[in-house]
């Protein structure tokens, strides 16, 4: 069962999750001398260069060649070694997806993917650099585990989870610094989640940057007397089904919001899961209210992050609007 945070306080951060993840990687390098890092020439963007500066003999920059980088990582991991592969989400999860599938997941190798620029958080870079299908590709692969931390502390924890989980782990990270919310005292685990706010009217589920938008939506809804429960589903695969079911049993309404294509995102997974496992009897209802926000079969675009996520319907305002609609029973 997820821990419930008493009070969430957002603090402006100067460290995007990609940087925090890499900083933890450098620290981890001191206690674990056996793992190596493969970079595909964006080390100064993913901050993996920090590892390379400290451990030059354990850092391999394979150039602008994601396919070759991923395959070479598989070769180095073939006898059990842990290899971190760093790059941008679009290239690692799509250009190299077949290598990840057949030559990393299938032989269950200890390859940990540091994937930056997840979702529309690379807003100003435009569509070619926005990984808006990464969760779908990675979570579809057998053996793959998927993490999506939202702040400095959960990103640092994600690195530890990745290293301590056997087999392949994908971590979705963000380009821009947003907020910090957790502290060093918070704990994270594979298959875990955090309930950030208690509420009995609707369950808002999200991960990564949209967690902050869900919190904002909960604030907006509270002013209208609607109490939203907010869950940070930082472990996307496997996700915390127990916490989800417990919350949904009480609220009888679930709204998933994600910075990703709706199709084959976490919302699809949760929707089908609830169809099969929702405790209708103990909830005492015959229908569960469910909706899902994300990219509606469309690409994103360049622009200011907040303007872009609002246009594509995953801002706090948009989530609050969808929650009202869902609770009022109106159909879109």
């Amino acid at each position, binding site marked *: 069962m997820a821990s419930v945070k008493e009070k969430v306080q957002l603090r402006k951060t100067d460290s995007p999750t990609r940087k925090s993840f890499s900083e933890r990687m450098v620290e981890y390098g001191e206690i674990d001398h056996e793992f190596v890092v493969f970079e595909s020439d964006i080390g100064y963007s993913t901050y993996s260069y920090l590892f390379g500066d400290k451990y030059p003999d354990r850092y*391999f920059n394979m150039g602008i060649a994601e396919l070759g980088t991923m*395959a070479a990582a598989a070769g180095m991991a073939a*006898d059990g070694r842990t290899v971190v592969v760093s790059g941008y989400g679009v290239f690692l999860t799509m250009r190299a997806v077949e290598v990840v599938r057949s030559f990393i997941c299938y032989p269950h190798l200890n390859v940990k993917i540091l994937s930056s620029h997840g979702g529309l958080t690379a807003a100003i870079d435009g569509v070619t650099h926005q990984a808006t299908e990464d969760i779908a590709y990675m979570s579809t692969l057998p053996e793959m585990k998927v993490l999506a931390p939202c702040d400095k502390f959960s990103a640092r924890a994600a690195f530890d989870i990745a290293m301590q989980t056997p087999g392949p782990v994908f971590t979705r990270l963000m380009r821009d610094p947003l907020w910090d919310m957790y502290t060093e005292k918070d704990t994270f685990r594979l298959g875990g989640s955090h309930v950030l706010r208690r509420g009995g009217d609707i369950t808002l589920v999200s991960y990564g940057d949209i967690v902050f938008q869900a919190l904002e939506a909960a604030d907006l809804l509270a002013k209208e007397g609607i109490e939203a429960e907010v869950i940070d589903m930082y472990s996307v695969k496997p996700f915390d089904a127990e916490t989800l079911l417990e919350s949904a049993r009480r609220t009888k309404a679930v709204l998933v919001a994600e910075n990703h294509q709706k199709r084959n995102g976490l919302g699809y997974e949760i929707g089908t899961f609830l169809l099969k496992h929702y405790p209708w009897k103990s909830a005492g209802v015959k229908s569960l209210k469910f909706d899902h926000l994300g990219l509606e079969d469309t690409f994103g675009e360049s622009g200011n992050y907040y303007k872009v996520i609002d246009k594509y319907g995953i801002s706090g305002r948009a989530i609050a609007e969808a929650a009202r609609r869902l609770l009022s029973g109106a159909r879109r």
Partner: protein
Amino acid sequence: MGTTVGTEAKLDERIAFLKKQAQQVRLHIVKMIHKAQSGHPGGSLSAADIMTALYFDILNVDPKNPRWPDRDRFVLSKGHACPVWYVCLALRGFFPIEELDTLRQFESRLQGHPVSTKTPGVDATTGSLGIGFAQSIGMALEGKWLKKSYKVYALLGDGEMQEGVVWEAAASANKYKLDNLVAIIDNNNLQNDGYTDRIMPIEPLDKKFEAFGWTTRRIDGHNMEQILTTLREAKAHRGTPFCIIAQTVKGKGVSFMENVRGWHGKPPSDQELAQAIQEIEGGLK
């Protein structure tokens, strides 16, 4: 502890032994593909002499300890030719020879393309062309990083050179001066749809690899003396990665398969098998 098989013997005796061994390898290849009624005979037969030399002279491996950390690595980047690999592994003692009859069958350890987690002696899962070679880069990097003395051998098809990732790998081998890496190209000039030099020309392979910083040799891939002496040269070579371009004939050893496009991925009938066995037993022409 791994050992190569009888490296102390005189060269001409070694060559005679390896030629005989290659004959056995070819016989098993056609028999197992016939039994499975599925598989790739052409590319298995073209690589048979090279594979025999690797497994019965060059590679330092231990069938009793397939994951021995100091073993030489072998990657069959042209994974569809796995019948020749399975035969060599079986004859070398990695698993029982009778198991060859299970090729491609339900719940067999001998999958349609090589799988490292299923078959003893298979160091890398392959089957998607170009990717095995790229994996061998990581294996060689690990050897360099750990200052190990083992070598990594990768066998590629010539059609496979059309995959872009091959050249990503070739460049990285040069950057890291992977002189513990030996690439062998089974240059039979035939791929699924026809002649390689017509589908998408990839020559001159020697000049290309030299431009990428590799040392290259061109040999006759069915001349056991050339194969053996060049592989031994590659094994001793230091300073650069080493590429052997072996001129071969697809389907070598079975007249009706030789240099015929249709035998890329087709099993022989009962009659064809009988003729193939007879011809292989008669020796290479």
